[in-house]
Structure formats: structure tokens, C-alpha cells
């Protein structure tokens, strides 16, 4: 726990009554501090002064927890603010590269303006690339030093203000107003400036406030009760206001009251540490509740690309021949799949890579229309593509797909692979077996999630056969094959109608509707502006596996909140044993039998309870900030563990603590 001067000052600034009034529990302590201070000054009473001092400490400790939690975000915000330095933008008069531009300051730019950003320039504000491609250094936001590519069209077209173009140029259309950029929002979020109480936090505050009222009633009515007792017993004095305030502060749930907002801020902060920006505290809370994860197959469940693992030739040809044409067709194919075909042919059959130029070959790139790629080599036409596209290609030449090739392709699909058919000179040569490589350890991870009650659904564009095989291999609970944005959206709706909370990640513009519908939507920072707008969490690393981590962070926050609430309420039992015999010592000395802790004097007993009540807040700040680790062991086991630690612990700890403080006070 680091404490710097800023945080110290901030914690004192929070003594402002306006700030205190936001938290009903701590406001009662605040009023109690004032009351006891006035009594101490008016009556020149040392006991009241000690109580008053410790009540002020209690209030201050609460502030301190909040200030420390906020302070962590502030440091991050400061570094972000540096990258928001006012940059001079080159505002284009026309929306095309090469047109005339004028210097404009960032504040003068508006939504819809076009700017040109060249190597070395900072991108002035958030926008959409409309022309050009460039490498951009986004380390100011993501912390990742490797530059990323930003280009017009597609899913990598969004740029963030405050990042720097390293090479080439971009024409950017501004998509945000000054002061409302991603960076501005991020600064606001990490500072906690526009932090709103989450729904669960509000509900908890209501419960804490009503408990406070119950205890307020119990202590306020104690005055007439004790006055009656004094009258009847004919000795002693009615309980003093100082003692009543001390009892009240000890009984109301100050521990959780003081730490509640720190827990919320720390939750968002933990997201930040995982390089995820939570657009609201609510998103963090919802993450803990998620019971269905929609995971994209590629990149999350399988390694980003499929790899060729075998060549299965048609009956009229051989494996080597197939490997040879397959390699030829893939020489110019820079996709990972294409590379893997070349590599496999080389490794398995010693076929060396050849240079297309030397061969006088002409590369035929993949197009959406033909859905095939290949080469034209000295009059030979070599093509590779899916079964459907090769069948269509052959059919156009009045040829048929040989049955054994068809069977081989179907076998591969059934095993979860992707069959890639190769044709040469208008004849089917065979099938390349492309295989998805499931990430190591992912099955165990899904097993953990299942134990935690979270189901995983794999989303893939593959056909149902392939999808089923990968689903079985990776251990996901369900899959959605041949997924389209619409089907994804309707799947989310369907699951939500069953009462489930759905989380997903997405990056493309066509993901935006599904992201907006999902309860927890993680947008990739590398994704489009539309996706980022629709998400309530933004993953700066653009790592689809992050979703699993996000759920754990959400759960961690809820567990911390619940544990400290339970602890706080369980603490009350011991405090009664300390204060009740002390409060009535003069009237009913018999009640000293309740002084099970053997506290020395009534004053010491009450003061010890108040000091314990204050110090426990400080003691628990690290826990509130760090959070209680989530273990995927199922709800029942988790509850048992935490009840023992924080419920039973909360009953026992104050007995020891109060006794220890009483003994220490005895030394002085």
C-alpha cells in the first residue's frame, strides 16, 4: 500500500460534509465525531476527547481508503493526460490525400472534419481512417510498444487520439467532439471522476443505511431505558451521549461502509491492470454474473490459423504429385494456411520452395467471387479452394468430383479439419487436410468455468461438422456453426430470454449489434469504432481469451464486497460484549458478568471497541484494494470457505483485537 502526499491531502479534502453525506454510514460517524468533539470541548472531558479523536480517525480512514484506491487510477490518468497534449492538426479542405490543408489546434476540430496525419504526427482525435494505411504507435493507450497497422476499410480502420503515426500517412475523419474522445473518457474512468454507484452498490447502501437506522434506534432509545433503570435502581447515571455515540459507531457497519467505494474503484482498477477499460462499474459487476461466454473459435479456442497436416491424393495420382501442385498453388499465398501447405510439402516430401517469377507463373488471388486461389503456370491451371467452390469449378468444365476425393474431404470435415481441394488441369488432384490447432490448456480452462457454473459457446463460421469436432476437442459446452452476425445476435437474445447473462468479445463493425445486446461486451481496442462504442469493456491488448479473466475480476469484486459486509456485521457481537457491561457499570454492576474479555475499566472497554472499529478499516484497506481471489470451485464450496473466513472470522477477530487494545491502553 503506497501512500503519497496527494492521497493524504485528498483524504483530508474528503472531510467535506458534502462528500460525507454521500455515504449514509460514514455520515453518521461524521456527525458523531462532531457531537463528541463539542461535548469534549464543552465539558472538558478527557474520555469524550479520546472517543472524538478516534471517531475522527474512523472517518479519515474511510476517506483514506477511497483516496488510495483513486490514487492508483490518478497516476495512470496523468500518464494518459500527457499524450493528450495539444497537437496541431493538418485539417484538410477536401476529403482526399494531397488536397490542401491548414493548421488547426485539436480544440478547433469537430466531428466530421478530415485531417491528414503523416509519419511522426500525433493523431489529434478519435477517428476513422478513410484513406491510406500506416503503422501507428498506440503504446500511450495500450502500453504495448509494438506498432499496429491502421488502414482504411475493414476492421482496422479506427484510430485513437493521442497515438502517433510512425510511417506512411492516413486521412482520418474525426468521429468525436473535443473533450469526448476515448482518451478523455479513459482519463475520466480511471480517475473515478465520473464513477457512478453500481446497482448492486446502491442496493447494498440501502441495506447498510437501514441497519444504521436500526442501530440508531437501539442507541437513541437506550437513553430513556437507562434513565428508567437509574430511577428504579436509585443509583448510577443514565448513559452519556458520548457512550451512546461510541456504541452506535461500533454497531453500524462502518467497516464495509468505509471500504465500499474503495472496493468498487479497485475493481475497475484491476480491470485496468489487466489492460481492460471498464466503461462503467456496472460492467465489472455484470462480469461476475455472467453465465454464458460466447467465444470466437479463432484466436480464443484455436490458434489463430489452421495448418496443413496431410495430403490425400485422388486415385489417379500420388501424394507427392498432390504435394507438388499444392505447394505450387500456395507459393504466393501469404495466408498462414497457405504458408503451412508450402512448409508441409517441404518437410514431408523435400519439395523446395520455388520462385514464382522464375517459373513464369501467374498468381491468381482469392476473390469473393471465385472463392479459390491458385496459379497459372505455363498453361496449367492450378486451383485450390473449398469443396463447394472446387466442385463448382469442375462442374463448369463438365467434370465431376471423384467420389474418393469427396469422401476424403467429408472425413476430414467430420474430424474437425477443413478440407482444401486442389485441382490441376481441370482434374481434382486431392485434398489438403487443414487442421485447427486447439490451444494448449484450453480444455482445462473450460472445465474450471463449468465448475464455476459458466457455460461456454464457441462461435465459428465453420460448418456444423467441423464445429462439432473442434467443440468436442476443446471441451466447450455448445457451439454455433456457420455463425453470422444475425445468428449471433439471436443466440444472445435466446439465452437472455432464458434468464442468462451473456458475455462476448468482438471487434468488427458487424459485431456491434451483438455487442450492444450482450450483457458484458468486450470490444477489442484494435477493432472498429462501432464495436468500441457498443462494448462496455475495451480490451487494450485485443486478446480474446481475456474474457475469462474479466469474469474472474468481476467475481472478485463481488466476493470482496460480500465478505467485508459479512465481516462487518459479524463484528458487532463482540462489540456488544465490550460496551454493554461498560455502559451500565454504575447502574447494574451485575452486568460485568458479560465482560467476557475481562476489559479493565468501562472507559477502556468503550475506547478499545472504538479504536478497534477504526483500526480494522485500515487493516482491511489492502484486502479491499487487492480483492479476494476467486477460485473456480463452485458456489457451495466457495460460500463455505468465505463464511468460515469472514463470517466466523468476523465473530472471533474483534474479541482478540479489543482485548489486545485494552491491554495496550493499560500500559499507558
Amino acid at each position, binding site marked *: 500500500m503506497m501512500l503519497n502526499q496527494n492521497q493524504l491531502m485528498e483524504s483530508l479534502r474528503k472531510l467535506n460534509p458534502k462528500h460525507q453525506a454521500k455515504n449514509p454510514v460514514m455520515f453518521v460517524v461524521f456527525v458523531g465525531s462532531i457531537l463528541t468533539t463539542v461535548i469534549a470541548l464543552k465539558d472538558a472531558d478527557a474520555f469524550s476527547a479520546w472517543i472524538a479523536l478516534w471517531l475522527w480517525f474512523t472517518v479519515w480512514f474511510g476517506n483514506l481508503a477511497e483516496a488510495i484506491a483513486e490514487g492508483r487510477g490518478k497516476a495512470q490518468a496523468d500518464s494518459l493526460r500527457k499524450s493528450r497534449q495539444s497537437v496541431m492538426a493538418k485539417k484538410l479542405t477536401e476529403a482526399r490525400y494531397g488536397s490542401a490543408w491548414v493548421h488547426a489546434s485539436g480544440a478547433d476540430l469537430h466531428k466530421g472534419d478530415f485531417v491528414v496525419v503523416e509519419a511522426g504526427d500525433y493523431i489529434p482525435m478519435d477517428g476513422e481512417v478513410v484513406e491510406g494505411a500506416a503503422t501507428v504507435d498506440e503504446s500511450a493507450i495500450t502500453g504495448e510498444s509494438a506498432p499496429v497497422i491502421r488502414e482504411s476499410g475493414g476492421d482496422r480502420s479506427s484510430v485513437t487520439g493521442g497515438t502517433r503515426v510512425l510511417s506512411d500517412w492516413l486521412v482520418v475523419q474525426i468521429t468525436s467532439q473535443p473533450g469526448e474522445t476515448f482518451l478523455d473518457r479513459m482519463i475520466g474512468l480511471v480517475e473515478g471522476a465520473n464513477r457512478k454507484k453500481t*446497482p448492486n452498490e446502491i442496493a447494498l447502501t440501502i441495506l447498510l443505511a437501514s441497519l444504521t437506522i436500526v442501530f440508531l434506534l437501539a442507541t437513541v432509545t437506550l437513553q*430513556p431505558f437507562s434513565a*428508567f*433503570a437509574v430511577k428504579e435502581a436509585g443509583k448510577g447515571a443514565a448513559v452519556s451521549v458520548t457512550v451512546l455515540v461510541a456504541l452506535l459507531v461500533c454497531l453500524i457497519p462502518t467497516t464495509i461502509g468505509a471500504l465500499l467505494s474503495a472496493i468498487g474503484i479497485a475493481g475497475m482498477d484491476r480491470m485496468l491492470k489487466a489492460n481492460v477499460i471498464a466503461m462503467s462499474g456496472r460492467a465489472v459487476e455484470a462480469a461476475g454474473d455472467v453465465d454464458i461466454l460466447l467465444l470466437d473459435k479463432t484466436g480464443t479456442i484455436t490458434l489463430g490459423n489452421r495448418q496443413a497436416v496431410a495430403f490425400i491424393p485422388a486415385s489417379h495420382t500420388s501424394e507427392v504429385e498432390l504435394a507438388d501442385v499444392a505447394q505450387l498453388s500456395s507459393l504466393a499465398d501469404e495466408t498462414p494456411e497457405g504458408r503451412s501447405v508450402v512448409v508441409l510439402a517441404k518437410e514431408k516430401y523435400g519439395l523446395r520452395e520455388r520462385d514464382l517469377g522464375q517459373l513464369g507463373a501467374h498468381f491468381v488471388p482469392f476473390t469473393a467471387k471465385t472463392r479459390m486461389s491458385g496459379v497459372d503456370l505455363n498453361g496449367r491451371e492450378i486451383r485450390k479452394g473449398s469443396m463447394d467452390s472446387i466442385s463448382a469449378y469442375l462442374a463448369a468444365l463438365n467434370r465431376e468430383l471423384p467420389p474418393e476425393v469427396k469422401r476424403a474431404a467429408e472425413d476430414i470435415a467430420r474430424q474437425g479439419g477443413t478440407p482444401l481441394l486442389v485441382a490441376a488441369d481441370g482434374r481434382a488432384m486431392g485434398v489438403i487436410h487443414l487442421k485447427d490447432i486447439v490451444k494448449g490448456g484450453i480444455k482445462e480452462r473450460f472445465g474450471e468455468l463449468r465448475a464455476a457454473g459458466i457455460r461456454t459457446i464457441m462461435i465459428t463460421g465453420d460448418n456444423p461438422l467441423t464445429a462439432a469436432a473442434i467443440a468436442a476437442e476443446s471441451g466447450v459446452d455448445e457451439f454455433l456453426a456457420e455463425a453470422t452476425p444475425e445468428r449471433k445476435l439471436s443466440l444472445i437474445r435466446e439465452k437472455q430470454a432464458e434468464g442468462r447473462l451473456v458475455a462476448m468479445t468482438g471487434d468488427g463493425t458487424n459485431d456491434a449489434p451483438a455487442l450492444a445486446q450482450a450483457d458484458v461486451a468486450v470490444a477489442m481496442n484494435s477493432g472498429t469504432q462501432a464495436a468500441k462504442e457498443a462494448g462496455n469493456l475495451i480490451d487494450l491488448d485485443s486478446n480474446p481469451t481475456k474474457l475469462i479473466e474479466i469474469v474472474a475480476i468481476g467475481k472478485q469484486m463481488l466476493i470482496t464486497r460480500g465478505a467485508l*459486509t459479512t465481516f462487518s456485521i459479524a463484528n458487532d457481537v463482540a462489540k456488544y460484549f465490550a460496551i454493554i457491561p461498560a455502559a451500565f457499570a454504575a447502574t447494574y454492576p451485575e452486568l460485568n458478568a458479560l465482560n467476557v474479555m475481562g476489559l479493565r475499566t468501562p472507559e477502556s472497554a468503550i475506547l478499545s471497541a472504538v479504536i478497534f472499529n477504526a483500526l480494522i478499516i485500515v487493516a482491511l484497506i489492502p484486502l479491499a484494494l487487492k480483492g479476494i481471489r476467486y477460485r473456480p470451485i463452485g458456489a457451495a464450496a466457495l460460500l463455505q470457505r468465505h*463464511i468460515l473466513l469472514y463470517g466466523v472470522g468476523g465473530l472471533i477477530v474483534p474479541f482478540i483485537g479489543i482485548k489486545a487494545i485494552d491491554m495496550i491502553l493499560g500500559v499507558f
Partner: protein
Amino acid sequence: MSTSDWIQIGVFLGIFLAAVKPLGAYMAAVYEGKFTRLDGWIYRILGVDPGEEQSWQQYSIHWLCFHVVGLLAVLGILMTQQWHPWNPQGFANLPFHMAFNIATSFVTNTNWQNYGGESTLSYFSQMAALTVQNFASASAGMAILVALARGITRRSVGVIGNFWVDLTRTTVYILLPLSLVLSLVLIQQGVIDNLDAYVKTTGGQVLPMGPAASQIAIKQLGTNGGGFFNVNSAHPFENPTPLSNLLEMIAILLIPAALCYTFGRLIQDKRQGWALLGTMLIIFVPFLLLIVWGEASNMEGKELRFGTVNSGIWAAATTAASNGSVNAMHDSFLPLGQFCTLFLMMLGEVVFGGVGSGLYGMIIFAIITVFIAGQMVGRTPEYLGKKIETFEMKMASIAILVPPLCVLVGTAIAVMHPQGVGGLLNHGPHGFSEILYAFTSMGNNNGSAFGGYSANSVLVNILGGVIMLVSRFGVAIPAIAIAGSLAGKKTTPVGLGTLPTHGPLFILLLAGTVVIVGALAFLPALALGPVVEQFRLR
């Protein structure tokens, strides 16, 4: 404790627990609408469309109106009783403050009695005003429970049932038949039931008469507890034999316990009902044993024909359930017994509690428990598939706040006011216990009397009346509101990540919450009463 003590306790627990499943299943069938032959014509006469369901707001308004009309009717009858028939002793009209207290008391299922039945009320008043409310207040409590069960099972619906249907079915199919059977058995055992004038014996003793048996059956079954005679079930005409005593004791807990099973059936998860019953039992049984053990050598204020064990069991049952009838004087209990009876009421009358009201109170505590501890499993709180959010917490908070507010403020006003302390029989801590007991009893709609405290003053009557109303409505309306809000929510399917609310751990947790949250507010007050007395005994 001797073997025979254990046997008596065992027989009592065994019989009423054995009745839970059959009676609970029957009641569930009633609420599922399996019987319709007898109630249909009532709706036709009243012009109620039984198929028309109500939102929680409408349900609350109908519920409240029903109580207001009942209150005015009782008030009217009591304030004009001298002109009514069946008044052989010629009892006079009651003053307003007294009638108000009685009316609120019976309408709210409290049955706190500031009067002696045989010296104050005509037979007509007993029958037309009080017995009617014994049925009505009990049915109204059970209706809310049924509405709450509907709220839990329904998904995204705005309505929670029809109050008049719930009320009528409860009365016609559950309370009337059970009361009829119990009355007949009690008459066979010697409980009187007539409209005769009081009888003067040759020895000069005046023996009160009246239609007692018919009122006593529902008084026990409907957790009402208002005795026909001043000394309640200690009177030989109300409770003549050991068998009548056993039956009356069982009748106290019968419906509140069986409703747990009914609730489980209605929400289609019987385990949840058993868990709630289990929670009640693990709080109830230790207190029962403490009282019986503590009173083992104390015959003061007890009837010889019942002995200490059956007086102890009755005391535990009547304060755990919000019945309030007595067969021994709690004022004469040793401090430990006083503490236990007070504490059981202070828990908010959720350990069995009133018919319907006890269980919906316990469900509200379950909601609070889920909220406090449920987050420790890493999810926002949910109970029975429903997310517990701001609105539910607001309502649940009001419901747990109102009873302590009533008790503490009432007691505080009473100890500060000359009329409040004027009626004390004893002084010192015991005097404080007498006042605290009176307001705890009224503030939790229990109605049992400690004895010793003459509560028939204008202050106590009016203050007590207001407290009984606030306490009843302050829990009931939030419960209906929660029913409505839950009905409007989606149901989250249960999974491994869901907090299990039927296992032993949750039972312990719920019991812990009831004891800690329900009673923490009262420990300082208890310290000044029975706790001091207990330590003085040493």
C-alpha cells in the same frame, strides 16, 4: 431434564412435524386451485371475477381496504355492544381508546388483550367482532404468502393473483374445516360452548359461560391467541385436559410449519420449503429446551394440570409463532425463560411466526441473507432464481426495520410517560421487562401478555394500537411489493455458480442472520431487563 420431559417434548415435536407434509400438500392443492366447488358461489355473490389478477399495487389496496373495513366493523360493534343481543351479563359499550386497541389488535392478527374477556365483552362481540377477525386476519396473512410464491414462480409478469380468491380459499378450504374439527374435539374434552348467563355455584363462585370452543380452535390455528377468558388457555373452560393442551399446542405451530411445505410445493422446489422449516427449527428447538430446562423447578404462575414442561413448550411455541395465547404466566418465569420468550418475539416473528406472515417474514430475511452473504460466491445476489436488486432491498429493509422501530420507540415512550409506567406491578429490571414485553408483543404482532402490566390506559391503548397497525402493514405491504417486483423479473436458471439456498450451510447462515440482524437491536434493552435479573440470581 427427566426422561418423561424428553418424551413430552418429543411427542409434541413429532406430532406437529408429522402433520407438515400432509397438511402442507393439502394447502398447496387448495392454492393450486384443485378445489373450486365451495368458493365459486361466493365470488358470484360478491361480484368478484376470480380469473382477474391484480398487480401488487392493486393487491395491496384491496388487502388494505379489507383491513380498514374490518377495523371499523370491530370498532363499531365494541362501542355499541350494550345494544346487541347475547349480552346476558349486560356489558357496557367500550370507550374509544379501548375499542381501538382491541380492533387493531384483532385485525392485525396480534390479539393483544387489554381486557378480560369474561368481564368486558358480550358473546355477540366475541363472536361477530373477534372470531370473525380471527379468521380474516389469518387468511389475509396466508394470502400474501401465496402471492409471494406466485411472484417467485412467475417470469416477467405484472400480476400476482387475486386477493379475494386467495382470502376466500384460505378461509373456506383451510381454516374453517380445521377449526370445525378442532372445536368439536375440544368440546368433547370439556371446553364450553354456549350462550348461557354466568352460573353462580352453591359456594358463591361465579362461573363465566360463553361460546368458547368455537373461538379457541381458530385462536390457536390462526396464530391469533386472543383468549376467550382473561387467563387465556390457563382457564379450565378453555383448556381443561392434558389432551386438549397437547392439541392446542400443536395447533399453534401446525399451519405455520405446514406452510413451509406448501411454499416449497408452490415454487416447485420442495427443498427450499424444507430449508426454511429447518431454519425455524434450529432456532426454535434450542429456545424451547432452554425454557423447559430453566423452568423445571419453577411452578409459580403455572397450572398443576400441565406442569412445567407443557408450560415451557407452550411458552416457546406461542412466542416463536405469533400466537400469544398462554397457559402459564410468563411474568412468573425465571429470567432465562423471560429472556427466551422476549427474544423469540424480537426475532421479528419469523420463527414460525404468524400464519403466512411468519413465512413471508422469513423469506424477507432469506433475501437479506442472500444479499449479505450471497455475494461471497462471486455473483450479484439472487434468491430462488430472482435477482435481488435495489427495489427488493428497499422493501426488505423497510420490513426488517419496522418491527424494531415499533418496539423500541413504543417502549421508550412508555418508560418516559407516567401512564406508561403507571400500570407496573413490579419495579427495577423486572418492571422494565414488563413494559418491554408489552411493546415487543404488540410491535411484532404476537399478542402474548407477560402479565403484571396493566396496559389498559389511554396512552398504551392508542400507542399500542398504532404500533400494531404499523408493524403489520409495514411488513405486509413490502412483502406484497416484493412479490410484484419478483413476478416482473426473469428467472435465472440454477447452475453450479448459483448460491444454493437449500443446504445446511444456508440454513445456518439464514438462522445466523435472523439472530444477529433480528436481535442485535434489542440486546441493550434485554441487558436492562432479564439479563440483569439473571445475574442477580447468582
